[in-house]
């Protein structure tokens, strides 16, 4: 069988893989958003900009200091995480008692500033970043040619997502974290430093975004606006999945990436909008999202 519904099989599988890669990014970003929202009650609009920053750090490390991809995969999340810590301590912590809207607006402002800085230094043109040597090339699976790097992205993000899920759902640290989102006062009374936990959660969430950014750098062109287009799709993913569950964020992200990839094969004109159409349909049936709880 070499054709499915009139589409050559290799093309179909290629797009499916591309969808899975995009879905991995959606999953990692919406997962970070969910973790931050759970703890800080803030929709982190700056998530896309911090993802872009991760990709840029990878590129800068390579072109200014000759630091390779693997080192940046660790360093970039650390740097962006530290930057996130700074954002949380300097700006976000003043907003917790206010309406959620102000958190959204403030992080939107932060996005504009970060993007503005990168634009003023690098413009909007893309910076090339090559695939690391160890992962260049492709494997012939018989029915399709699998680029090694893409396979690595899917595997790495799945491992990270499941790791975060296990950390939150299965460890005592995660239990404290979840208790902190339910009743911060009580958890504080047990001797947990809740403000520090909140700061670290934010740092962890944005580090996840930066990790996704470094993973994306060799696939997409590194440019100042790469985050702002992505973040809105991720918002749609969040609305579709519902904010309630960590696993929901991962599954919805991956699933929608695949759906988007398939749309590119069968009806390319709609590939940019299919996620939003699905969002509209899901809202009609389940306003709380697929994995969300009705409130």
């Amino acid at each position: 069988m070499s054709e499915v519904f009139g589409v050559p099989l290799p093309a179909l599988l290629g797009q499916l893989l591309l969808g899975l890669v995009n879905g991995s990014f959606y999953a990692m970003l919406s997962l970070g958003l969910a973790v931050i929202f759970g703890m800080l009650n803030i929709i982190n609009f700056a998530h896309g900009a911090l993802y872009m920053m991760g990709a840029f750090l990878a590129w800068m490390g390579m072109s200014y200091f000759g630091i390779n991809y693997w080192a940046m995969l660790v360093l970039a999340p650390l740097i962006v995480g530290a930057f996130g810590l700074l954002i949380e301590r300097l700006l976000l912590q003043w907003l917790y008692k206010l309406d959620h809207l102000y958190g959204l607006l403030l992080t939107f402002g932060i996005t504009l500033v970060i993007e503005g800085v990168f634009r003023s230094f690098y413009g909007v043109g893309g910076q090339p970043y090559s695939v690391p040597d160890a992962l260049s090339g492709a494997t012939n699976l018989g029915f399709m040619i699998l680029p090694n790097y893409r396979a690595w992205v899917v595997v790495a993000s799945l491992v990270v997502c499941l790791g975060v899920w296990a950390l939150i759902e299965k460890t005592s640290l995660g239990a404290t974290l979840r208790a902190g989102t339910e009743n911060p006062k009580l958890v504080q009374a047990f001797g947990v430093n809740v403000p520090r936990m909140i700061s670290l959660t934010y740092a962890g969430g944005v580090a996840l975004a930066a990790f996704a950014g470094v993973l994306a750098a060799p696939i997409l062109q590194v440019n100042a606006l790469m985050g702002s287009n992505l973040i809105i799709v991720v918002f749609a993913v969040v609305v579709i999945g519902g904010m309630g569950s960590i696993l929901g964020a991962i599954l919805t992200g991956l699933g929608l990436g695949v759906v988007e990839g398939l749309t590119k094969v069968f009806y390319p004109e709609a590939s940019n909008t299919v996620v939003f159409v699905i969002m509209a349909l899901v809202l009609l049936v389940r306003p709380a999202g697929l994995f969300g709880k009705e409130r």
Partner: protein
Amino acid sequence: MNSKTSGYLALFVAVALLPLLGVYPIFAMKVMCYALFACAFNLLIGFTGLLSFGHAAFLGTAAYAAGHALKVWGFPPLVGIAFGTLMAGLAGLAFGLLAIRRSGIYFSMITLALAQMLFFYFLQAPFTGGEDGLQSVPRGSLLGLNLENDTSMYYVVLAIFGGAFWLIYRTVHSPFGQVLTSIRENEARATSLGYDTDRFKLLAFVLSASLAGLAGATKTLVLGFATLTDAVWTTSGLVILMTLVGGMGTMVGPIVGALLIIALENKIGDLGQWLAGVTGIEWFVGLGESVSLVTGLIFILCVLAFRRGLVGEVGALWLRLRGPGKSASGH
């Protein structure tokens, strides 16, 4: 006639005299269009408590619809504007029906996502001209008045703006507006009083979208083009900033905010040049290229320190100076 009404009238007359005082009419018209856009947006956030992050969609829908009607179908100017407004209202109805199913930040994210969907539609649809947009839309003539003349156009825009502002004022001060305010303050209580809050929110949303559309259609007529910039999500952010800077929930705040932001966008290059000259730091020369950096900083500053906006802060100061005896009496 109370002092408030005469104040608005004096303001109206002053604005009517601006072209005679040598103010560049295109700039003034652009400010009025964005001021109307911000007032329409404020009707939703300031008086109903709904943060739409997709209002550029209505500006853009009306801009394209009016542009197409005027240029390709040859509609007369006012009919073209009305058509654009109607299309924006319909888009608002579709958005509203979906978005009001969720509240708070979900509402914001849904409006943002839906607006992005329309943006991609405008990017790909054959009638919008893609990246180039609709160019050279004719202004035509109205009642024998040639609108290609900037001064004639100015007074038409002023009439539209004045009429729309009056409509918003009447809406906010009507029983309908009181219900909207009660929804903003405490939706559960409004529901318990027997109001179908979803219906009120939907009505407010459609009205706000239509007025944003009126602003977009008028802008197309004034500037002669409609482009993707009108519909892109950063424009939705810009209108939020205008309202925030001026003062959410105040009548004139959005107008002040629109004036400030449009002026800043036009003058930021000069400001950068000046700063570079004063400080000797070469980097400031490029400031005109990174407007978003400056608007972002203003955003952060407003959210952290001036949540009431300029007009709101001045109003609060005014009340404090007049002493505790005369407390605020609402709008």
